[in-house]
Structures are given as structure tokens and as C-alpha cells.
């Protein structure tokens, strides 16, 4: 049956090619991709926003402050508009659908009013750095500006940067009442769990209004 010869030879050849190709593929994919690390603070820094910096004087009848519209962190090159975020039906904090924009939790005080105001943003997208990629490089004393709907800007200084495992998130420390005008910026970080597609930790930047 000489007609079978080419088919059999073809199968043998194809099999060997597949083995060679797959072995090459296997060997080429045995290394991982290292984490992309953000540049040092100061690289790509932005100027502080212009316009009046307004601290609302505290009094028995404080004037209501306007809603926040944008956030600037000059040292790490963050300048973003702010969207509004609520809670999901599960009671968790909504996250922005875009990784390039940050959002203010409307259930928290407005930035510059008495209390702990909450702004969150993504550390990254599926491939690229997100708006809060460099958040964990901030240190005590760094400046944060929030512009409000009435055109006024409020200035904050970082007091502390903390990393918490999401399983041990200190809800009271982050969301609980405080007696002065404070800001908490929250993003993800730490180990990325491939199984769930989530980071295991949250970074929280605590900041206080410059009075």
C-alpha cells in the first residue's frame, strides 16, 4: 500500500514539529513578569493648582462646603476629575469603572467639612497603571488639593500611609467620625491574587486639612 506512505510520514513529521514547537513554547514561558514599580515621588510632578485655598472657619454653624470636583497630588503627578460613588447592593463601596479616574464616596463628609472624607481610585487597569498607581509612595507632609464645585480649593497634608489586608480592614479607623477636616485616599496594593483577580491589601493615605 504505497499510497499510505505520504500520510504516515506526514503524521510523523507533523508530530515532531508539534513536539519541537510546544517544547520551545514551554521553555520560553518559564519566567514570570516582574511587578511594574512606580517611579519615585517627584518624577513627573505637577504644579499645585492655582486659585484661592480656602479653609472654612469652624464655628457653631459651619457653612456647608461645596461638593468636590477634582483632585491634584502634585508630587506623584495625579490630576483627576472626581466622580461620585455610593454603595453596592451588598453594602460595599462602589469603585469607578474606569481605572483612570478617582471618585468621592457621597456617604462621607465633603472634603474640607468636619469629618473623614473618602476618595478612592484604582492602582491599575488590566495592563496599565491606574490613577492611584503611585499612592503608596506618598509620605507624611506631602500635599493634596481638592477643588470644589464653587471654584474653591482645599489643601490637605498627608499624616500617615497605611497598608491593611482586606481581610482586616479597619472600618472604624477609616470611615468612623473624626472631629477635624480629614481626607482618606484608598487604593489597592500588596500581593495580587491571580485566583480571584484581586489585590489582597488596601493602601490608605490619611491627610488633614491645612488650617
Amino acid at each position, binding site marked *: 500500500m504505497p499510497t499510505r506512505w505520504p500520510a504516515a510520514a506526514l503524521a510523523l513529521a507533523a508530530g515532531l514539529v508539534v513536539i519541537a514547537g510546544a517544547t520551545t513554547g514551554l521553555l520560553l514561558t518559564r519566567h514570570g513578569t516582574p511587578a*511594574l514599580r512606580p517611579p519615585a515621588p517627584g518624577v513627573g510632578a505637577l504644579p499645585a493648582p492655582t486659585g484661592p485655598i480656602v479653609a472654612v472657619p469652624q464655628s457653631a454653624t459651619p457653612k456647608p462646603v461645596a461638593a468636590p470636583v477634582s483632585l491634584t497630588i502634585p508630587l506623584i503627578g495625579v490630576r483627576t476629575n472626581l466622580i461620585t460613588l455610593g454603595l453596592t447592593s451588598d453594602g460595599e463601596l462602589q469603585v469607578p469603572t474606569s481605572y483612570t479616574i478617582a471618585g468621592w464616596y457621597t456617604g462621607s463628609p465633603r472634603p474640607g467639612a468636619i469629618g473623614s472624607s473618602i476618595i478612592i481610585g484604582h492602582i491599575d487597569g488590566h495592563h496599565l497603571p491606574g490613577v492611584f498607581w503611585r499612592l503608596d509612595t506618598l509620605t507624611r507632609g506631602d500635599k493634596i488639593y481638592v477643588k470644589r464645585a464653587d471654584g474653591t480649593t482645599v489643601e490637605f497634608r498627608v499624616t500617615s500611609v497605611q497598608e491593611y489586608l482586606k481581610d482586616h480592614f479597619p472600618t472604624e479607623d477609616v470611615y468612623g467620625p473624626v472631629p477635624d477636616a480629614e481626607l482618606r485616599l484608598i487604593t489597592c496594593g500588596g500581593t495580587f491574587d491571580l485566583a480571584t483577580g484581586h489585590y489582597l*491589601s488596601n493602601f490608605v493615605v490619611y491627610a488633614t486639612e491645612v488650617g
Partner: protein
Amino acid sequence: MKISRLTRRLLMLLAASALLLGIPAAATAFASSATMGTGWIRLAHLSPNTPAVDVYLYSFGNSNAMIVLHHVAYGTVSPYESVQAGDYSVAMRAAGASATSQPVLSTSVTIAAGHAYTVAGMGPESGLRLQVLDDKLTTPSGQALVRVIQASLKDQVVKVTLGSTVLASSLKFANVSAYQPVSPGTVTVTVSAGAGAGEANSSVTLAAGTVHTLVVLDGANGLEVVSLEDASGSGEPPLGGVSTGFGGTAGHGPGSPVPWLAAIGAGGLLALTGGLRLRRNRQLSTGI
């Protein structure tokens, strides 16, 4: 001998995979806001017949004042100041008196990290004292917290209601009621001093997650009530942390080798089948 070498290899492999699986995450240090080491203090003048004063805050043992509030009149409550946890002293001098003169009154206060305090001059001038109040910074979920400071000398016993809730039925001059949780909303505060006496009404908005102090004062005409928002947070605290990352900048381990191994296996099968058929064909052809 061979078995023990195999066991050792297996153990090494296990140890290596434990490292890869990110067990070091458990070693990260965690700190609460209390470990930032700061607390809050505010100063108040709530003695009706005491003239204006200068109030000094000293870090304990340091004769240079950290904060000086000049000409603080009756009814004034300062904003909170954030200070390092530790021991402090508060002194009151007559308005305009020299900073080195003997204070009219002084007291010590220990500020714990993450806690807030009001140091108020209270009582009649003849019995003036500095009282240190512990100010709460936590609310029951979805509720507001309210207390009353009674600083009216004209009407020494008052009843304070918030809507239909009685905050204090007979609160005496220079006393402070316990905190009471209330439902959020805009309600009317009513302060009354009994039949025929003065009454004060005021509308207050109490948001969930806020702490308030109502101060009953002697006004120019009868009673006055001032509502202070002491602290504020998220009325509905979100559950748990936030999911703010897709992993695009995270490091990734090597992908699974299974598809490659399966392809090698399939290639092997294909080559084997072809090879066998080839051999059989050759045998057949030589047989003829």
C-alpha cells in the same frame, strides 16, 4: 538512599512553592490610626458670669504655651486642635493678663491617641472650674449621637427634647448629659425651664455618623441653644475594603505549563502513530 534524596527534593519543592504563593504577606505590619499617636483637644468658656479670659494650652512641663486663645468670651467653643498624645495642662487667665502671671485656674489633661476632649471653664464665677469632658468619636451604625451641656445660670434646671426624644429631663447648671443615639434627620430642639419660665427652640440637622453637642446658654433674652457638630464620618460605612485594581502592574508568575505539555503529548502521539504506520508499511512492502 534514593528515597531519602527524593524526599529531600520534594521538601525543597514544597518550601519553594510556599514562598511563591505569597505567604510573606502575613508578615506585613498593620497599624491603626491610634498608632499615629495623635488626639484632639478643644477649649471652651461656659461660665455665664465670668468675664472673657485668655486660655493657654501647655505640653506638660513646658512653660511655652502651644496654643493661646485670646479674649475667649462666654459661649465660645474653639475648633478641635490635633495634638500628640500625652499630658497637657490648660490654664485660664483674665483677658489681657501677662502670659507669665499666675493663672486664675489650671488643670491637667491626658490626651490618648485617637481620642477627643473638651476642656471647658464651667460653673458660676465664684465656683469656676475647668472640666475635662471625654468626647465620643464613634456612633452606632446609621445613627447620630447627641449630648447636652447645661451652661445657663438664669434657668438652672432645664429639660431638653429633640423632636419627641427626651435628651435630659432635669439637667442642672454646669452638668453634661450622657450621649444618646438618635435617628438622623432635621428636628427641633426644645429647651424649657419649667412652667412660666423661658423656652428656646432651634432646628438641627443630625446626619448619620455624626456626633453633636448641644450647649444651653443664657442669651440676651432668655435661653439660647447652640448645636455643635463635633465629629463626622460615613453614616453608612462601606463593608470591608475596596477592590481598586485589575492587576495590570502586578508581577505574574510563569503561566501554566499544562497546555504546552498537552501539545507535546499530542505531538508525541501523532508522531508515534505515523512512525508505527510507516514501519508497518515498510514491513508490508518488503513482505511482497
